[in-house]
């Protein structure tokens, strides 16, 4: 198992904040909007450094999405910021009509996604956002795994002409992707080569997959670990190449099983190369209050669960 050094402990939302501030310096067309969550989204630096390009919308997310769509008409590249729940479900029709169908170059940047939002509970813990966004034609959906990857993704999406959903989170988590790693939209990242099982993970579950890989290696199981940071467009080539080698798959994400990464991969494999697949995801229920660690444990989004799922997938393959 390839060693992945922990470079620090930071929240992915801070990666977004740094990336956005960086964009402010290099791209004069980048503008930002926030619905009363500047501190939570780490947009303070952009606001301070580029006040004329920053718009506070108040607690009015629908209006924020519409204004962002309008700003593109003048050639701007708007980045909207609020929690993932308010970035997607609350404003689905605004995104659908004014952004996706209208093919507007809006970057919908969403923090506090999933269970790791923690104590605020299920009202705020959206676990359906990847599904909602990936169903929209033309929408790119990205869920980076650590601070460095989130920063790189933030900078990369400004170069992409079209609507993007960028999903990140609240808690501090290990930083393990080097800051020199290039972020290419739609290009999966191989973190560990292996032969017995393919583990495709996104977001906060990528580090759990790496931890699982170490445990599996100690058990003599060679896991190929691939970071699927871009859920749409899916890197079909990388997924099929790995799956054809290992013949069984585990997918891992902080999202509902319905509509998530695992769902996209199952669709691909059922058409091109059917193999046993195990899903690490939330299974058709809402979250609740608790610490991020407690919640990930209770809902089975841990390295232990990935180890178990990998063993099960291998057993199914061999039966």
């Amino acid at each position, binding site marked *: 198992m390839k060693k992945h050094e922990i470079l620090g402990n930071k929240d992915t939302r801070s990666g977004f904040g740094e990336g956005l501030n960086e964009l402010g310096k290099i791209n004069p067309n980048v503008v930002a909007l926030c619905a009363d969550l500047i501190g939570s989204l780490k947009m303070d630096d952009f606001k301070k450094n580029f006040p004329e390009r920053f718009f506070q919308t108040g607690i009015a997310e629908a209006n924020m999405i519409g204004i962002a*769509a*309008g*700003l593109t*008409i*003048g*050639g*701007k590249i708007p980045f909207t910021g609020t929690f993932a729940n308010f970035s997607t479900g609350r404003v689905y029709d*605004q995104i659908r*009509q004014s952004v996706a169908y209208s093919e507007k170059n809006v970057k919908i940047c969403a923090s506090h996604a999933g269970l790791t939002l923690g104590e605020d509970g299920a009202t705020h813990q959206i676990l359906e956002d990847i599904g909602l966004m990936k169903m929209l034609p033309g929408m790119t959906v990205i869920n980076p795994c650590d601070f460095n990857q989130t920063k790189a993704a933030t900078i990369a999406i400004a170069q992409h002409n079209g609507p993007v959903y960028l999903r990140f989170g609240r808690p501090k988590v290990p930083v393990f992707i080097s800051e020199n790693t290039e972020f290419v939209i739609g290009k999966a990242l191989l973190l560990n080569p292996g032969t017995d099982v393919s583990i495709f993970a996104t977001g906060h579950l990528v580090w759990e997959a790496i931890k699982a890989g170490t445990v599996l290696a100690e058990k003599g199981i060679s896991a190929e670990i691939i970071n699927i940071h871009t859920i749409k467009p899916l890197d079909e080539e990388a997924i099929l190449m790995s799956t054809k080698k290992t013949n069984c798959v585990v997918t891992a994400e902080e999202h509902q099983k319905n509509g998530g990464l695992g769902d996209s991969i199952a669709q691909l494999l059922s058409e091109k190369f059917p193999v046993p697949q195990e899903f690490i995801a939330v299974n058709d229920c809402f979250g609740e209050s608790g610490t991020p660690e407690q919640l990930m444990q209770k809902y089975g989004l841990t390295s232990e669960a990935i180890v178990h799922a990998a063993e099960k997938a291998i057993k199914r393959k061999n039966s």
Partner: protein
Amino acid sequence: MKPDITYLKQLSSQVRRDILRMVHAVQSGHPGGSLGCTDYLVVLYFHFLKHQPKKFTMDGKNEDVFILSNGHISPALYSVLARSGYFEISELSTFRKINTRLQGHPTTHDHLPGIRIASGSLGQGLSVGIGAALAKKLNNDKCIVYTLHGDGELQEGQIWEAAMFAAHHKVDNLIATIDYNKKQIDGSTDEVMSLGNLKEKWQAFGWEVLEMNGNDMENLITTIEKAQTYLGKQKPVVILMHTEMGQGVDFMMGTHKWHGSPPNDEQLKTALAQLEETLGDYK
């Protein structure tokens, strides 16, 4: 530039004929509001807008930009766009038909010149217009953004989010217009969901409010000219435009019945007889 009222009235008559023939041909669409807003759109596109119909760009830099929020009156917009030169007048015959660029509700999806945003799901266009206006300010572009909304559309909450934003951020390069015909699909706005005192509502939200008769060419022109004098004064501007749904066709006026119903053959004949063919019907 002095307006040619006679020509504008001829245009309105022709656009109304286009609307009726378009919705009749496919037996679907929304003639009522389209007929009511015809004079406004004609005045806007043929007198006020600084635009380049033959050189359409999505950015609209250094051009006035119009955002239609009540997308269901698409027949009126399509006719005015075609007759302004954005695309061939003959394309009006494809309205709502398979493979057309003239979708039931306007869309950018098929790259129809003149359309900068999809609309149809109501309540979104004011936000979009505000965004376009902010971009103009950032670009140091002195041109204006105009938006049009139905009065029933004001029942959508997003409109009031946008209204609050525009006042707070002093969006003073935008003129919003409300088609105040007091009718919507299910009946009068008073019956369906009373709008209350609209003038006082907009004023309370921090907007400069004007009123005009949207079916009187002279009044349209003088009021929009007056609205322009309020621009650049730290306040957004809205015009409550009193119109008659179905204007120009006697049996379509004074009722909400024609909001989303097309005329049959006999009704079309009766309606067209009331509207002079001034510039030639589309083929």
